[in-house]
């Protein structure tokens, strides 16, 4: 069966969607990513959508589900590379992608993930410090 590959890079998972996904493929990606976050204890997920020339409400919902589920599993999600025409269309469609962090490209997305992981570790350290 057709699958979108998920790559592990250190404590992060990387996904680059390069095909025009039918709905079941989007659902599989959501399920696969959730399982992989658990299996690898990943701290972050980066999803590159620069090759997608549309994001409709179904794919938008999938991205939101991934962000929501990864948050529950203690991982951050960043969506990178959205084409400007896709962004314009999404807003008009009525999708504002609440709860999804976005970045311009993969480099900035990785920076964002690293920063948020460092910040969380710092918060943990302060919380665990004896008075």
């Amino acid at each position: 069966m057709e699958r979108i590959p998920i790559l592990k890079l250190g404590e992060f998972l990387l996904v680059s969607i390069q095909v025009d996904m039918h709905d079941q493929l989007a659902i599989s990606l959501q399920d696969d990513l959730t399982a992989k976050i658990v299996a690898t204890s990943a701290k972050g997920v980066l999803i590159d959508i620069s090759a997608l020339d549309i994001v409709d409400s179904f794919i938008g919902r999938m991205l939101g589900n991934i962000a929501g589920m990864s948050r529950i599993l203690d991982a951050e999600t960043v969506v990178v590379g959205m084409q400007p025409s896709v962004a314009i269309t999404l807003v008009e469609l009525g999708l504002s992608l609440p709860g999804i962090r976005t970045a311009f490209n993969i480099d900035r997305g990785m920076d964002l993930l690293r920063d948020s992981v460092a910040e969380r570790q710092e918060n943990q350290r302060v919380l665990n410090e004896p008075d």
Partner: protein
Amino acid sequence: MSSTNPTSLPITSQEDIVVVRQAVRKAAVGAGLNLVDQTKIVTAASELARNALVHGGGGNVSIEHINEWERRGIRLSFIDQGPGIRDIEQALKDGYSTGTGLGLGLGGAKRLSNDFSIWSEPGNGTRVTITRWKS
């Protein structure tokens, strides 16, 4: 006013939605729509094709180029023989859904189109026609 012979495509599976998107993209490029307008009509087509499949139990779409006075564009008609929509006004509201979606399909497709018309009769199916003009 002139229009080409419409192309008709079936919508009976999820893969067909992808085929419809690609055919609408090709038609939009052919009609000279810019990238943003192409993206809007392809996204609207994706929503309406999914509606025809999920709510209408499948159907078809016809895609045609329109040349009307000084205007050029593409027109899409989505037709299904499903249960129809009882309350169209309600169905056009954002967030209203009888399925598992976000309820943005119909209202969103309307916003992404220049012209939008809908006909539906309970028990007799639904037809949604949208047009996007070259800007």
